[in-house]
C-alpha cells in the first residue's frame, strides 16, 4: 500500500483546556445519528466538552425508541419476498394504527434514509439480494448499537443499576436477534431504582415541586412524572415495575447526572423544568427559537 502523506486526514490533538463536562439526554444522542444539518450541530456543541456523560436509562430509551424499531424493520424483511414490498408491509401493519404512529414513522424514516444513502442498484441486484443487503445493514446497526453508544460518550452513570439497559442486543441462531426489553416486577426486583430514588429523594421532590408550579402547562410526560414521584415517596418499590419507572425516565436520566453542571437535551418541554429544578444549565443546540426570557 502506498503511504499517504499530506492529504491524510489527521485527528485533532488533545485539547489542554480545562475539562468541561456535560450530561446528555437520549434526544441528543439520537440527533447525533441523523443528517449532518442536525448531527453536526449537536457534535459542534459537544466539541467543547471533554467529558460527555449519559445515563444507562438513556441507553434503555435508545434501545426502545430506535433499536427495537429497527428490529421491527429487520423482521419485516423476512416477511416479504422483495424489497419493494417492505413499504406495503409497514403501511399495512403499522400505518393504520394511531397508537403505533411513532413506530411507523421511525421505520419509514429509517428505510427512506437507508435507500437514499445506498448505491442505487435497481439493475445489478435482484429484489431478494437487495433485501439481504438491507437486512445486513439493519442487523449491524442493531447489534452494534450499544458499542456505538458507548463510543460516543466518556462515562455512563448507572445509579439505578438498570437491568434492562444492560441487556445488549444479541444474535441468535438463524439470523434472529434478541433485542427484547424485559419486564420488571416488584415481586422480583432486578435493579436499584428504588434505592436510587431514596438516596436522591430531595432532587426528585425538587422536580415534583417544579412540575406542580407549571400546573396545566406541564407536558403529559411531566404530569406522569409528578404522579410517579408522589407514589414513590410512599413506596419507592413502586418504581420496580417497568411500567412505572418509565414515567420517571427523563427525571431518572437527569438525577443520574446530578454531579454534572450542564445538561444537553433536545426536548425543552421536559428538560427546561428538570434543569431548573436541579439548578443546572441546559443546552439545546437544536432549539429553533430562544426560550422565553432568553437572549
Amino acid at each position, binding site marked *: 500500500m502506498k503511504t499517504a502523506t499530506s492529504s491524510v486526514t489527521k485527528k485533532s490533538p488533545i485539547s489542554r483546556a480545562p475539562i468541561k463536562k456535560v450530561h446528555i439526554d437520549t*434526544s441528543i444522542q439520537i440527533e447525533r445519528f441523523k443528517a449532518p444539518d442536525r448531527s453536526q450541530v449537536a457534535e459542534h456543541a459537544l466539541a467543547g466538552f471533554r467529558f460527555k456523560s449519559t445515563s444507562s436509562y438513556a441507553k434503555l430509551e435508545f434501545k426502545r425508541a430506535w433499536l427495537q424499531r429497527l428490529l421491527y424493520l429487520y423482521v419485516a424483511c423476512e416477511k416479504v419476498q422483495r424489497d419493494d414490498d417492505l413499504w406495503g408491509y409497514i403501511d399495512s401493519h403499522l400505518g393504520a394504527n394511531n397508537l403505533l404512529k411513532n413506530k411507523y414513522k421511525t421505520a419509514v424514516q429509517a428505510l427512506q434514509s437507508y435507500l437514499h*444513502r445506498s448505491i442505487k442498484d435497481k439493475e*445489478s441486484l435482484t429484489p431478494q439480494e437487495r433485501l439481504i443487503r438491507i437486512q*445486513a*445493514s439493519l442487523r449491524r446497526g442493531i447489534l*452494534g448499537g450499544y458499542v*456505538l453508544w458507548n463510543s460516543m460518550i466518556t462515562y455512563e452513570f448507572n445509579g439505578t443499576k438498570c437491568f434492562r439497559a444492560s441487556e445488549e442486543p444479541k444474535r441468535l441462531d438463524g439470523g434472529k436477534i434478541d433485542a427484547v426489553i424485559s419486564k420488571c416486577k416488584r415481586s422480583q426486583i432486578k435493579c436499584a431504582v428504588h434505592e436510587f430514588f431514596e438516596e436522591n429523594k430531595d432532587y426528585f421532590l425538587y422536580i415534583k415541586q417544579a412540575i406542580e408550579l407549571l400546573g396545566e402547562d406541564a407536558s403529559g410526560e411531566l404530569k406522569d412524572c409528578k404522579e410517579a414521584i408522589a407514589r414513590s415517596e410512599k413506596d419507592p418499590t413502586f418504581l420496580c415495575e417497568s411500567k412505572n419507572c418509565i414515567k420517571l425516565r427523563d427525571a431518572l436520566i437527569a438525577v443520574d447526572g446530578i454531579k454534572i453542571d450542564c445538561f444537553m437535551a433536545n426536548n425543552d418541554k421536559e428538560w427546561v423544568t428538570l434543569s431548573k429544578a436541579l439548578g443546572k444549565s441546559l443546552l439545546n443546540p437544536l432549539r429553533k427559537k430562544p426560550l422565553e426570557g432568553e437572549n
Partner: protein
Amino acid sequence: MIDFNIHTGNAETQTINKEDNPNLDSTGETEISGKGSVAIHKSNISEGTMGADEKPQWRPELDMIVEKPVARGGLDKALLERAESIIDSFDSDDVVESMINLEALRGIVLGLWKRARNSSYYHQDILSTLENALLSKNDFTEEDMELFHETIQDLKNEHLVENHVKIISERFIYQDFSPLAFLSEIKDEDSDK
C-alpha cells in the same frame, strides 16, 4: 495429543490441547472472548508443540465459547482479490486516483452482494460494515485503508465466527464509522419518542 495454537491478534501465540479444553469442538474451531482474540482454525493445529508433561499455556481469563463454523460458502473470491488489490494501491495524495479507486471499490462491494445470499450471516455483516464505511465519506486515512485490507482478509475466509464480526465491527466504530450511518439521511426532528 493434538495441540491448538491460538493467535491472539497481539503477535503472541498460545498453545492449548484439546484434552484440556473441552470447549474445542471436533472441527477445532472455537471462539475466545476478549480484545484482540480471534477464532482458532484447523489450519492452526500443530502436533507435538509441547512436551508430554507440560501443562498447556492456557489463560483462564480467556473465556472460551464453542461456536460451530458456518457451513455456507464465502463470497466471490475474484472480486475480493480485486478489492484487495485496489486497497493496496490506494493513494490518498492523488484526489482523482482516490476517487477512481473508491468508485471501483463501491462497485465491487455491490457486486459481492450477488453471492452474499449463499454466504453466512457473518460474511454479510462484515460486508455490510465495509460497504457502510465506503459510503460514509470520500477521503480515507491510511488507517482506514489498513482496516479495509483486514476486512477483505476476513471476508476471504470461508468460515467466520461471531468474534470475527465483533472485532472488526468494533474497530470500525472506533475509527468513526457508525453502524447506524444509514440513519444519517433522517432530517425530521420529531421521531424519537
